[in-house]
């Protein structure tokens, strides 16, 4: 059973377009994190959200934690080819386990 479902699974867009990636669960998380992974490397942390309803911005990336702390979204404005990669959400559902989402593979075409 996958506790963290991401959608869409794949996304191919043109440079300059906007996009949103979703991370959903039926479990409550004390915090959620977003990572980006490039081919041949381990994931790298983008942001951590800890409070229900929290919104964080990182340049063109906007992250939101759902009010009930069961879901999160990542919005990218004016995507660039450098944004290409695998985006992963991760969290701990009340235990010490860090569970990762199913992943969203983004390709931004120049």
């Amino acid at each position, binding site marked *: 059973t996958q506790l963290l479902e991401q959608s869409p699974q794949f996304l191919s867009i043109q440079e300059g377009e906007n996009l949103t990636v979703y991370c959903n669960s039926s479990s409550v998380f*004390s915090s959620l*994190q977003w990572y980006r992974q490039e081919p041949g490397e*381990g994931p790298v942390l983008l942001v951590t959200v800890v409070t229900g309803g929290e919104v964080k911005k990182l340049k063109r990336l906007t992250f939101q934690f759902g009010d009930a702390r069961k879901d999160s979204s990542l919005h990218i404005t004016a995507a660039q080819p450098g944004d290409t990669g695998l985006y992963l959400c991760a969290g701990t559902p009340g235990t*010490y386990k*860090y*569970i990762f*989402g199913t992943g969203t593979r983004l390709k931004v075409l120049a």
Partner: protein
Amino acid sequence: NAGVTQTPKFRILKIGQSMTLQCTQDMNHNYMYWYRQDPGMGLKLIYYSVGAGITDKGEVPNGYNVSRSTTEDFPLRLELAAPSQTSVYFCASTRGLGNTIYFGEGSWLTVV
């Protein structure tokens, strides 16, 4: 600034062979994790540890074993390798929940 170091980087195993993936971290982190990642997919938790002498199963523990005799080291043992264990394995550590998870560079394992 080594961070999380895992070895080997690449390995080919024959069906039924056994091997150990080594993982060490120099950040004095209590929490350590082993994940596997199949092509194009997310990471699945195999085992984790919250401190020396304490380990627990993750989402996909079958066919694997771990030990945590020191804070620094968290080796993953594959017994009787099967083709289904062909994957990329990542070791990771963190200071605590909600903190950054640091990953090793990955170990590419092929079972033939």
